[in-house]
């Protein structure tokens, strides 16, 4: 099996799992129970994890808030800033390729009179920094532009974006869910005030994520209750998952330069093999400023779901942004939608475009890449033979 859908979540590192298990079986104490050892152990384990996550991104320990997933971190960042009592500004700037968990929380604010500016991206997926400068207004509360895009791989000029925001005195949030644990991150270098990261994207478990909140940044809590997570996020901590995230962060800090280089090498091999395969295969995203081991493209004449299904039958697991494959559990065809990210970077309106994303991991091997390069030509040829669109083009 070649698992090449790592943007959907990586395989947890076995060292992470080993570290977590006792916190399900024996160390089940609630971290808020400080006055007996069982609780205190859990508290200390969470603090240890916080230290490791902080170290991964160059933050202070008390600037790291644990949440349950990347979506929650993004929600806390965006809504938390806007909902804070001291925030009187009603304008937000995002890129048009932000994750749904940044875009959708803003919908209700728009209904309440807030204005959202969505920065266009070029076909390589990058926003234009001049556009950003022009878009910032006196009433701009927040800029949210992601690190790496999971669908097209493009990595933004976050440092420059952060510098512009800092100069203009606007808060800057980075959705770093794709990129954290693979690319060096230093919140001070990036000049950001908020940064989201999720454990499952760097060999940790699902169920733990974090939001970095720079000291002094005013963020309202979205969940009220006890005093957990410095009051930003009430609720009993998911200790085992947090411990796992901490361990994953520690391992990432020590080893990412090794595995990211290897992922980059394998990604380049895959990219070059695909480039020579069909002249009707088109890569998406930026050729160089990319997430390590991320290869994305679309193929003319054939549809993404059919491609995905054939790849899966051959033991290759990937992702697609085609409308047909978007929401198989929907009750109605109206709920099928092509990826807005792909249409933003100029993939034609033919909303079922045969888009594929291969996202590699530290466990990807040369054999996995060989397998894709061996199997894909046959699959594409087969689907082309079946396609009325292909005949017409030739």
């Amino acid at each position, binding site marked *: 099996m070649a698992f090449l859908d790592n943007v959907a979540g990586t395989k947890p590192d076995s060292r992470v799992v080993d570290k977590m298990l006792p916190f399900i079986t024996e160390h089940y104490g609630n971290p808020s129970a400080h006055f007996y050892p069982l609780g205190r152990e859990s508290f200390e384990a969470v603090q240890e994890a916080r230290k490791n996550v902080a170290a991964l991104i160059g933050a202070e320990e008390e600037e790291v808030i644990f949440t349950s997933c990347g979506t929650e971190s993004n929600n806390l960042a965006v809504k938390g800033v806007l909902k804070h009592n001291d925030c009187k500004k009603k304008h937000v700037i995002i890129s048009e390729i932000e994750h749904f968990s940044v875009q959708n929380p803003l919908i209700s604010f728009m209904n309440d009179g807030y204005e959202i500016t969505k920065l266009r991206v070029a076909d390589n997926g990058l926003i234009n920094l001049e556009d950003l400068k022009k878009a910032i207004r006196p009433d701009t509360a927040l800029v949210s532009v992601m690190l790496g895009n999971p669908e097209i791989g493009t990595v933004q000029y976050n440092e420059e974006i952060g510098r512009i925001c800092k100069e203009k005195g606007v808060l800057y949030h980075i959705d770093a869910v794709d990129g954290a644990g693979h690319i060096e991150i230093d919140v001070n270098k990036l000049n950001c005030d908020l940064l989201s990261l999720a454990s499952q994207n760097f060999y940790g478990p699902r169920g733990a994520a974090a939001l970095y909140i720079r000291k002094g940044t005013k963020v309202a809590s979205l969940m009220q209750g006890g005093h957990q997570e410095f009051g930003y996020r009430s609720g009993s901590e998911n200790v085992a998952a947090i411990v796992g995230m901490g361990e994953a962060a520690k391992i990432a800090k020590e080893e990412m330069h090794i595995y990211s280089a290897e992922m980059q090498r394998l990604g380049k091999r895959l990219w070059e093999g695909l480039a020579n395969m069909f002249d009707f295969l088109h890569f998406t995203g930026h050729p160089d400023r990319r997430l390590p081991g991320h290869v994305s493209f679309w193929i003319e004449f*054939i549809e993404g779901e059919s491609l995905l299904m054939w790849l899966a039958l051959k033991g290759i697991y990937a992702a697609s942004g085609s*409308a047909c494959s978007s929401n198989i*559990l*929907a009750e109605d*065809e109206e709920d*099928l939608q092509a990826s807005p990210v792909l249409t933003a970077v100029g993939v034609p309106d033919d*909303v079922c475009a045969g888009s594929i994303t291969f996202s590699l991991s530290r466990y990807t091997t040369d054999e996995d890449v060989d397998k894709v390069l061996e199997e894909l030509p046959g699959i594409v040829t087969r689907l082309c033979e*079946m396609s*009325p669109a292909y005949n017409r083009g030739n």
Partner: protein
Amino acid sequence: MAKGPYSEKVMDHFMNPRNMGEIDGANAVGEVGNPACGDVMKIFLDIDDAGIVKDVKFKTFGCGAAIASSSMATELIKGKRVEEILALTNQAIVDALGGLPPAKIHCSVMAEEAIEEALKDFYIRKGEDPAIVQKMKEEIKSAATGGN
């Protein structure tokens, strides 16, 4: 292995599509597209003087359900008379496939429509009014529900 979103029959027709291709001397060709998802389905028929479908082929640009629907539709109409294939509903295709996810029902509708378009083309080529197809379909439908 965990079951996917599609039935075994759908997977079978997706992996081994029946009657895939084109008919060079087809005397009825129908093509439909779905604006909702960009799918395109094309059906080729060879209908003899007695009004029997001697041969049928399809080409489809689309998802697993679209490919399986067109493949199953060709199986259901091969060797049948024009009156019989007009009676073929998308529900019959869905049933023959062992069901489709709700979001994919439109793929079976496309197959029914592609056949209808092909029959219109058949009558146009014969110099007849293609409206007869719609009329015949309505008659078949009202006959089917006439007992109620």
